[in-house]
C-alpha cells in the first residue's frame, strides 16, 4: 500500500514517552525447524512509544511481535514484558497476555458470538468482571471505534473494516498496557483501510504503547516515534520517521524504501 490513504500533511502526533520499560528483548533467536527466522534481536520499548515495524515479507516482523505475547516460543535469548520473563509457565503467560492486546491480519473474531459478546468474553471470563460492567465497557470501546450500532450483529455480517475495528475494540476491552498490530490492514480493501487507520491514530493519540507491523508508510510517518526496518531476521535499522525516510543509512533500507514508495515524489 501507498501512503495516500492517510494524508501525510497531518502533523505527527506529539505524545509523551516515559522512561519506563514495557518490553525488553535481549539477543532473541528463533528457528522454525532449520530455518533461522530471528537472529539476535535486541529491542527495548518504553511506555507510550509507538513503533512501526516494516520490511520485506519473510523478514521476521510478524514472528518477532508474536514472540512478545508468546504465540511463538523463542529458543534463545530473553523477552520480558512488564518485568515478567516469558517462559513455559502457562499461568504467567496468561497473565502477560491479559496486558498485551493483539490485532491480527485476519481479525480472528469469534464467529459464533455477537460483536458485543466478542468484546465481553475475555473481561467476564478472564478479568471476572460483572456482565453489566463488561457490557458497559464494551459499548464504550465500540463507540470509540465508531460501530456501537453493530453490537448485536455477528462478525459474518460485517465488512472487513468493521470486523477489524471490532477486533481492536475487543482487545481494548481488556484495557491492555501494550497493543500489538500484526499487519492490521493487509487483508482489507483500499476503501476500508482508512477507517481502521483512523481508529489506530486515535488510539496512538490517547497514549497507548503500540507495536505495529505495517507497510502503511503514511501512518508510520504520522504516528510512529520510531520505525524499525527488518530484513532476513535482523533489525537492520531503526530511526525516528523523518530521519528514516529522508536519510536511510543502510543500502537494504534504501532499496526497500525505493520499492515501497515508488509512487511518491
Amino acid at each position, binding site marked *: 500500500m501507498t501512503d495516500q490513504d492517510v494524508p501525510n500533511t497531518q502533523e505527527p502526533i506529539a505524545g509523551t514517552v516515559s522512561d519506563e520499560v514495557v518490553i525488553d528483548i535481549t539477543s532473541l533467536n528463533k528457528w522454525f525447524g532449520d530455518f533461522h527466522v530471528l537472529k539476535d534481536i535486541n529491542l527495548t520499548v518504553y511506555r507510550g512509544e509507538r513503533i512501526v515495524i516494516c520490511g520485506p515479507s519473510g523478514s521476521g516482523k510478524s514472528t518477532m511481535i508474536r514472540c512478545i*505475547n508468546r*504465540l511463538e516460543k523463542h529458543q534463545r535469548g530473553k523477552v520480558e514484558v512488564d518485568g515478567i520473563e516469558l517462559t513455559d509457565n*502457562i499461568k504467567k503467560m*496468561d*497473565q502477560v*497476555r*491479559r496486558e*498485551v*492486546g*493483539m490485532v*491480527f491480519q*485476519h481479525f*480472528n*473474531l*469469534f*464467529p*459464533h458470538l455477537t460483536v458485543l459478546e466478542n468484546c465481553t*468474553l*475475555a473481561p467476564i*471470563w*478472564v478479568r471476572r468482571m460483572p456482565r453489566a460492567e463488561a457490557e458497559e465497557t464494551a459499548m464504550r470501546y465500540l463507540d470509540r471505534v465508531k460501530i456501537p450500532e453493530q453490537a448485536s450483529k*455477528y*462478525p*459474518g*455480517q460485517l465488512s472487513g473494516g468493521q470486523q477489524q475495528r471490532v*477486533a481492536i475494540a*475487543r*482487545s481494548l476491552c*481488556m484495557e491492555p498496557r501494550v497493543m500489538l498490530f500484526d499487519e492490521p490492514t493487509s487483508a482489507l480493501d483500499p476503501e476500508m483501510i482508512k477507517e481502521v487507520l483512523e481508529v489506530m491514530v486515535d488510539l496512538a493519540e490517547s497514549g497507548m504503547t503500540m507495536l505495529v507491523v505495517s507497510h502503511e508508510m503514511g501512518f508510520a510517518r504520522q504516528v510512529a516515534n520510531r520505525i524499525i526496518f527488518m530484513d532476513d531476521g535482523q533489525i537492520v535499522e531503526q530511526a525516528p520517521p523523518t530521519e528514516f525516510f529522508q536519510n536511510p543509512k543502510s543500502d537494504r533500507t534504501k532499496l526497500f524504501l525505493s520499492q515501497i514508495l515508488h509512487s511518491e515524489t
Partner: protein
Amino acid sequence: MERPLHIVHEKARTLPPPAMSVGLVRWLKDNLFSSASNIFLTFVVIYLLWLIIPPFLEWAVFDAVWNATSRAECWDTADGACWAVVVTRFDQFVYGDYPKSERWRANLAFILLFVALAPVLFDRIPWRRYLVGFSISYPVVAYILLIGGLGLPEVETARFGGFLLTIVIGITGISASLPLGILLALGRQSDLFIIRVLCVAFIEFIRGVPLITLLFVASTLLNYFMPPGTSFNLLVRVLIMVTLFSAAYLAEVIRGGLQAMPSGQYEAAKSLGLPYWKTMRLVILPQALKISIPGIVNSFIALYKDTTLVIIIGLLDPLGIGKATLSDTTWQGLSTEVYIFVAIFFFLCCFGMSRYSAWLERRLHTGH
C-alpha cells in the same frame, strides 16, 4: 470517430423479480418438468408409486385385522395385515417383562425424560435455568423410578425389555458418550504425550473391534476381571460398552470439527489471556461441535439402532420380543407385521433426531 463517454448521473432503480420466477407453477416447471428426460422420469416415478402404494394401503389399512386372538382367526377374517399380533402383545413390546403393577413408574420416567431433555435441546424455553437443574438430576430420578429406592419396590433390570430397554440404552449411551467423546477428541490433540497416546490407543482399539464382540466381553469376560464375588449388573455392563463404543466414534467426528478450526481462533483466545479450558469451552468447542453436528447425530442414530444387538446376549429389546412373539404358535408366520411395527418405532425416533439436528444447524447459523 470519437466515442461518446457514457456517464450515469442517477442511481439505477431496484425492481422486483419477474412474475414467472416464483410460485408453485414455477416450482413444478423447474423441478418436475424442466426437460424431456425430466418429464419422462416424473411419469416413471408416478407410475411406480401407483404400482406400490394402493396395494400396500389395501394390505396395511383397508384389509387389515386389528382384533383377533390368533393368526388363524386373522386369516379367516380378511386378507390384509394381521395387526392383532401387535395389539395383543403391545404391552410386551413397550415394557418387556416389567411388572404390570409398576409400569406407571416407567411411564412417569418417560414423561419426565421430555421435561429433562427440553432445556438441553432448546435454548429458548421459559425457566430454562431451573429446568437444567432438573436435567442434571434426571439420571438419579430415572434410576429411582425404574429400578427402585425411596420406598419404591425394586425391579430387576433383567425384566427391562422392549422399547423401554431401547430407550434406556439409547439415551444413556447418547448422553454419556458425548462428553466422553469430547474429552477423547481433546486428549487426542493434547500436547501431553501420555494423554495423547492413551486416547489414540483407546480410540483405535474400540474402533477396531465389532460392537458385538464388546457386548460378549461385557456379558462374559468382564466377570473374570472383577474380584470374585462381585456381581456386576448385565445392563450396566452393556451400558458401559455401548457408551465406550460410541464415544470412540464421536471422538473422531469431533476431532474432524476441531481440525476445521482456523489456528487464528486459538491465537485470538490466547492473546486475550483465556486459559486452555475456557478457550475450549467458550471459543473452540461451540464452533467445532456445530460443524460436527451432522456426524454426531449420525453416530447417535447408529448407536440407537445398534441397541438391537443386545438381543445376542439375551436382553429382550423390541426385536427380541418380536422373535419371542413369532415363535409362539398362535402368532407364527406374521414376521412382516412384527418387523414393520418395530421398524416404525425406530424410524420415528431416528427421524426425530435427524429433524432436530437440521433445526439446530439452522438455529446456530450466524451468517459466516
